[in-house]
C-alpha cells in the first residue's frame, strides 16, 4: 500500500516506527483487553487493508488501552485518530470498505454509539442487500459495553438487541480472553459487518489464550463466529449467558453445585445469528432454562431465547423459560447499579423458581 505524501495533515513529529517485535507465541494467561489487542495486532499485520479508526485510539491507545501500542507499530494511517464524530467514523468506514479496506471502528462507550446508529442500521447493515450482493461491507464496530465499573451515565449500557434486531448485522460478544483474541480476528475476516461487543467490566479478567490458534480463513465464512458453546455441562437447568454474564453464570453454577443443583452454562457468544440448536439441545436434556443478560429484559435477547426454546423444546420443558436482566429503566446511577445488574443472587433465585415448577 502506498500512502500519498501530499496530505496536508501528514505529521512530522511521529518518530519512525521501530522494528516490530516478534508476535508472541504459545499459550499465555492474558486479560481480555490484552487478548483483543493482540487479535487486532495480528489482523493488522496479516492484512494491510485492515485499519483501526476511532476517538483516542492512537497515541492514547484507547480509553481502555485496547489499542495500546498499535499506533506506534502501524502508524497514523492504519491506527487513525478520528474527529469526535461517531456517525462520521462509521460513515467514512463504509466508504473505506467500499474502496477495499477493512475498517475496525472503536466506539468509545456503548451509550455513544447512537449518533452512529443511523449509519450502522440504515447504511452499513443494508448495502450488501440493496446491491444484490455486489457491495461488501467488512466493517467491525467495536463497542465496550455493559456496566459494573462505577461509571457515570451513557457509559454502561447494553444495546445489543437494537443491533440484533437489524437484519444485515452480525452481533457477537466474547466472554473470555481466548474468545476475545480469536473472535476479533474472525470478525475482521468476516465479509459481513460485525457489531463486536466487548464486556468492559471483564476487560481485566485473565484467561489462557492460545496465540498460535489457526487464523480464520481470509475473508471467508466465519463459521466459528456462529456458534454457542457449552462452557460447563450440567443436568438440572440450562443457563444461557453471553459477554459479561457468563462469569456470573459460572459462579452461580459453582454455588448451585454446593447445594446439589447442576447447572449447564451456555455462552451464546453470538447474538445474531443466534445458535438455537445448541441451546435447544441443552434444554432438551435439562428441561429448564434461565437466560441472563445485563440489558433490560423487556424485548431483549432473553425474550428471543425464551421464544425459540419454547418453540423447539415445548414438550421437554418442566418450567417456563425465565429471564434475568436489567429493568426497564435507563441505566441507573452507579451507586445502585449492582442492584440493577443481574448478579449471583438474582440468577440463583430464577434457578430456584424454575426448579419449583
Amino acid at each position, binding site marked *: 500500500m502506498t500512502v500519498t505524501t501530499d496530505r496536508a495533515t501528514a505529521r512530522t513529529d511521529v518518530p519512525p516506527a521501530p522494528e516490530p517485535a516478534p508476535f508472541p507465541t504459545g499459550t499465555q494467561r492474558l486479560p481480555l483487553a490484552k487478548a483483543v489487542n493482540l487479535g487486532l495486532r495480528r489482523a493488522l499485520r496479516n492484512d494491510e487493508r485492515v485499519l483501526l479508526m476511532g476517538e483516542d485510539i492512537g497515541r492514547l491507545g484507547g480509553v481502555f488501552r485496547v489499542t495500546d501500542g498499535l499506533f506506534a507499530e502501524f502508524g497514523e494511517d492504519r491506527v487513525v485518530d478520528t*474527529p469526535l464524530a461517531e456517525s462520521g467514523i462509521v460513515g467514512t468506514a463504509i466508504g473505506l470498505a*467500499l474502496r477495499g479496506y477493512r475498517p475496525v471502528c472503536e466506539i468509545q462507550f456503548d451509550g455513544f454509539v447512537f449518533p452512529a446508529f443511523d449509519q450502522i442500521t440504515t447504511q452499513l447493515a443494508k448495502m450488501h442487500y440493496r446491491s444484490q450482493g455486489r457491495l461488501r461491507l467488512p466493517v467491525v464496530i467495536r463497542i465496550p459495553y455493559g456496566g459494573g465499573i462505577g461509571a457515570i451515565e451513557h457509559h454502561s449500557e447494553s444495546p445489543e438487541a437494537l443491533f440484533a434486531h437489524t437484519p444485515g448485522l452480525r452481533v457477537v460478544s466474547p466472554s473470555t480472553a481466548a474468545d476475545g483474541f480469536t473472535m476479533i480476528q474472525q470478525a475482521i475476516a468476516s465479509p459481513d459487518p460485525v457489531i463486536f461487543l466487548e464486556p468492559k467490566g471483564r476487560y481485566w479478567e485473565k484467561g489462557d489464550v492460545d496465540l498460535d490458534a489457526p487464523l480464520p480463513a481470509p475473508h471467508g465464512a466465519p463459521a466459528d463466529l456462529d456458534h454457542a458453546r457449552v462452557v460447563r455441562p450440567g443436568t438440572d437447568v440450562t443457563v444461557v449467558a453471553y459477554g459479561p454474564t457468563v462469569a456470573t453464570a459460572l459462579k452461580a453454577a459453582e454455588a448451585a453445585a454446593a447445594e446439589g443443583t447442576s447447572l449447564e452454562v451456555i455462552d451464546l457468544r453470538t447474538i445474531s445469528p443466534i445458535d438455537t440448536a445448541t441451546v435447544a439441545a441443552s434444554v432438551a436434556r435439562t428441561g429448564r432454562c434461565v437466560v441472563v443478560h445485563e440489558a433490560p429484559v423487556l424485548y431483549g435477547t432473553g425474550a428471543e431465547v425464551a421464544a425459540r426454546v419454547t418453540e423447539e423444546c415445548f414438550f421437554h420443558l418442566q418450567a417456563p423459560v425465565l429471564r434475568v436482566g436489567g429493568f426497564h429503566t435507563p441505566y441507573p446511577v452507579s451507586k445502585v447499579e449492582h442492584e440493577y445488574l443481574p448478579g449471583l443472587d438474582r440468577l440463583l433465585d430464577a434457578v430456584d423458581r424454575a426448579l419449583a415448577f
Partner: protein
Amino acid sequence: MSSTASAATGPLTDEDLVQLLTPAGERVAHPEYDAWAADLDADRLRAMYRDMVLTRRFDLEATSLQRQGELGLWAQSLGQEGAAVGSGHALAPQDHVFPSYREHGVAFVRGLEMTDLLRLFRGVDHGGWDPAAHNFHLFTLVIGSHTLHATGYAMGVQRDGLVGTGDPARDTAVVAYFGDGATAQGDVNEALVFASVNQAPVVLFCQNNQFAISEPTTRQARVPLANRAPGFGIPSVRVDGNDVLATYAVTRQALDRARSGGGPTFVEAFTYRMGAHTTSDDPTRYRTAEQEEHWRRRDPIDRLRTYLERTDELPEVFQAQLAAEADAFGEHVRTTVRGMGRPAPSTMFDHVYATPHAVVDAERAWFTQYEQSFVDDGRETAGGHR
C-alpha cells in the same frame, strides 16, 4: 446573474454566482473559469445539449409512468439538468460518484442503462445497477448519509496513492451530490470535517434547488450554503446551476484540485427544482406560479439551445435526429419498465448477509415450504414471476 431574485438575501441571493452563459444565451467572459471551459468546442456543447434533452425526456417518461401506476414514486430532476450534465461532463472515467436520488443527469452522462434507475422506484430492486460498472454508486434515501461514504471512499483513494501522481489517467477524485436540505444534516457537516482534516480528494456538490420537499432553503440556512465550507477549511464556489458551461468549468476545477492533492471543494450549484420533490407532493401549496415562471425563463436547456442557435452550431438535422432519438428513448423506457417482472418472493432472503446466517436460512426454508404448500393444494402459488 441579473434576475428578479437578485434582491434576495441570505441563502437565496444569486449575486455572486459563476456564470458563463446568461439566461438569454449570451456567452460572458469570466477571468477565472473561462480557462476551465476552454475545451468546450461545438461538438462537446452539442453533446451536453443532447444529454440534457435526453435526461429531461427520461425524467418526463418516468413521471408519466408513475402517474400510470407503473412506478411507486419518482423524484424528478426537471430543471436541474444543467448542473447534473455540466458536472457529469467534468468527471474523468476513474472518478467516483456518490449521487443523491435525483442525479439522473449524472447517471446518463456516466452511461448507465437508465431504466435500471427505475427498478428502485418500481419496487423490484433496492438498487438496480452495479456501482462498479460506471463508478456510480447506489442512490441513498437517507439524506446526506452518502456524503460520509464519499469522503471515506476518497480517504481510501488517498491511501491507495492515487492522488497527486501527476498522471491524469490515474489521479482520482470522488464527488458527492446532495441537496440544500442535506446541508442541515449532521452527516454532511461531519463529512466536511472528515474531508477537511484528511484533505480528502472529494468534491461536495450541493444542488441547491431551493426546496427540501416543501421547506425553502431559508428554513435550512441564513447564509449562502457555500459560505459554510470555508469555516471547515474547505474552499467553496457558487455557480449558476442552470448554466451547463459554468457548472462544467467550476466542477472541473474542483476535481482537478482534488486529484492533484489540493483537498476537498464545496460547490453550490444554484438551481431550481421545476417539478415536485417527488410525485407525492404538490408544489402549488408551497410556491407561486410567478416564481416558477421566473425560473422557467432560466431553463438550462433553452439557454444552451439559444446559444448554439445564435452561433449557428445547432443544425436542423441535428435537432431532428435528437428528437427522433428522444422518442425512441422514451419508447425504450416505457417498454422496459412495463416489462420488469416481479421478483420471486423468496429472493427477499437473498444477500441479507454475504455468508450464511442460520436464522435467515431457516426463515427462507420455512417460507419456501409454505409457498410450496399452496402448489400442493392445487392453488396458485403466492409468488413466482408475473
